[in-house]
């Protein structure tokens, strides 16, 4: 397949880097300032080197990439809330051109799902967004395989930064500020980790799962009940530990409600992964609980989920 990749962050860059390995050709690549377009396939190494050294992927205008020759648009620009722009417009343009779209950007699916679905209905292209939930873990694909109507609930740890902070606090008896600073030093937490620790990122993923499980629900971030882990006292984790439990930032979708917040779970539970790992538990109608765990973030992990979606469109 010919791919146009929008966004040159960790995920977009990894998609460009790995595309050939998966048998695809990148015909366009853009960040917010620049683009490189070649219908015969761009030179991935050159573009990635240019991004690293000069901060641009090529000499073209970003809009060139959107109008280039491609089969699948890979939307990997940063997640934005509310109107989810410019991601939403990118998706619309591609669908109106009857092209397929694979998203790593959570904004359009979490905030404007019904619009995306009606655009898809009128297009010859299809939309996939498995990379938006749980990185490399096949959460959306598993739900689709089982059939959304056969899954009654989802619970998960879907933010690696928050999980790292909580597991370090519990293991080392350190306080919140200390562990967060350490996470920033390690590159596990961003300079501004607000969305990770205030529950927003996990909530977006919960809302996306809600839209998959209940397609007519039209869930957005505003429908989610969100609580974070900011300044969680270490004494809470100590008390949990004394009782064989721990605290994890859990996102839950059940009975039409998306809820995110710190919850008590048994220390050895499937939903108490260590470090930055993610875990998801689906409540299935005929097969009990189904657990999926793995790396929930990271450039190559998320890029592999994007490329899996491209493969699903192809087949």
């Amino acid at each position, binding site marked *: 397949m010919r791919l146009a990749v929008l966004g040159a962050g960790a995920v977009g860059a990894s998609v460009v880097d790995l595309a050939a390995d998966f048998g695809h050709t990148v015909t366009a690549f853009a960040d917010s300032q620049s683009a490189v377009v070649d219908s015969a396939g761009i030179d991935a190494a050159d573009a990635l080197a240019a991004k690293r050294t000069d901060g641009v992927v090529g000499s073209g205008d970003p809009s060139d990439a959107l109008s280039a020759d491609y089969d699948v648009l890979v939307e990997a620009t940063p997640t934005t809330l509310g109107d989810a722009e410019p991601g939403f417009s990118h998706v619309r343009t591609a669908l109106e051109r009857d092209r397929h779209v694979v998203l790593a950007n959570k904004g359009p699916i979490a905030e404007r799902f019904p619009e995306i679905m009606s655009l898809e209905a009128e297009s010859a292209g299809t939309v996939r967004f498995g990379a938006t939930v749980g990185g490399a873990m096949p959460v959306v694909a598993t739900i689709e395989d089982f059939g959304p109507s056969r899954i009654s609930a989802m619970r998960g740890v879907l933010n690696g930064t928050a999980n790292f902070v909580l597991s370090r606090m519990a293991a080392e008896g350190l306080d919140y500020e200390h562990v967060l600073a350490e996470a920033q030093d390690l590159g596990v937490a961003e300079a501004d980790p607000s969305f990770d620790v205030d529950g927003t990122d996990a909530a977006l993923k919960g809302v996306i799962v809600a839209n998959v499980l209940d397609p007519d629900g039209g869930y957005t971030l505003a429908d989610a009940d969100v609580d974070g882990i900011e300044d969680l006292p270490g*004494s809470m984790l100590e008390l949990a530990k004394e*009782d064989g439990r721990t605290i994890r930032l859990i996102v839950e979708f059940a009975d039409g409600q998306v809820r995110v917040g710190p*919850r008590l*779970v048994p220390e050895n539970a499937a939903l108490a992964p260590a470090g930055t790992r993610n875990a998801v538990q689906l409540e299935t109608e005929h097969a009990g609980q189904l657990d999926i765990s793995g790396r929930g973030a990271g450039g190559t992990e998320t890029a592999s989920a994007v490329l899996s979606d491209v493969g699903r469109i192809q087949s």
Partner: protein
Amino acid sequence: MSDAQTDVRAYTLRLELVDEPGELLRSLRPIAEHGGNLLSIFHERGNVTPRGHIPVEVDIEATPDRFETIVEGLRDAGINVIQAGTERYSEGMTIILSGHLIDTDLSDTLSQIQETKSATVTDISLSAPAGASDISSARMKLATESGSTEEVLAVIRDIADEKDLRLVEPLTTGGAE
């Protein structure tokens, strides 16, 4: 696939005994009389519930039919059965509260929970690393009537809101608790 008359299973009974001589023995009699096989007794002598009772956990083996008779026998004898088995009668739940627990009157918080009638606080552990006037945390175990977990949690959420306490709830569904 099970037979209520022949299939022997393990059950946990959680009792609350009045602090009087002979109470423990009196609570074991109905178990023996109705054919339950006593596996273990955990007598939390030093651990008194907010109502001044002594929690006792008894593990027994019995058929489902006999188990029902045992629970009835215990109740007939006036023994307070907080939890019997894990499913039919009651559910256990652990929560952690944090904030100015002492300044916001911890005993009032506990009484408000007890007042829900469908819950009883069976255990509490307090951690106040920076002293009683600063942020402290408390882990509470509650026994709730079967099916009333949500209702009890709603009450606790209101208390937490009102007193500006941080509440960490258990993940109650799906066997995580």
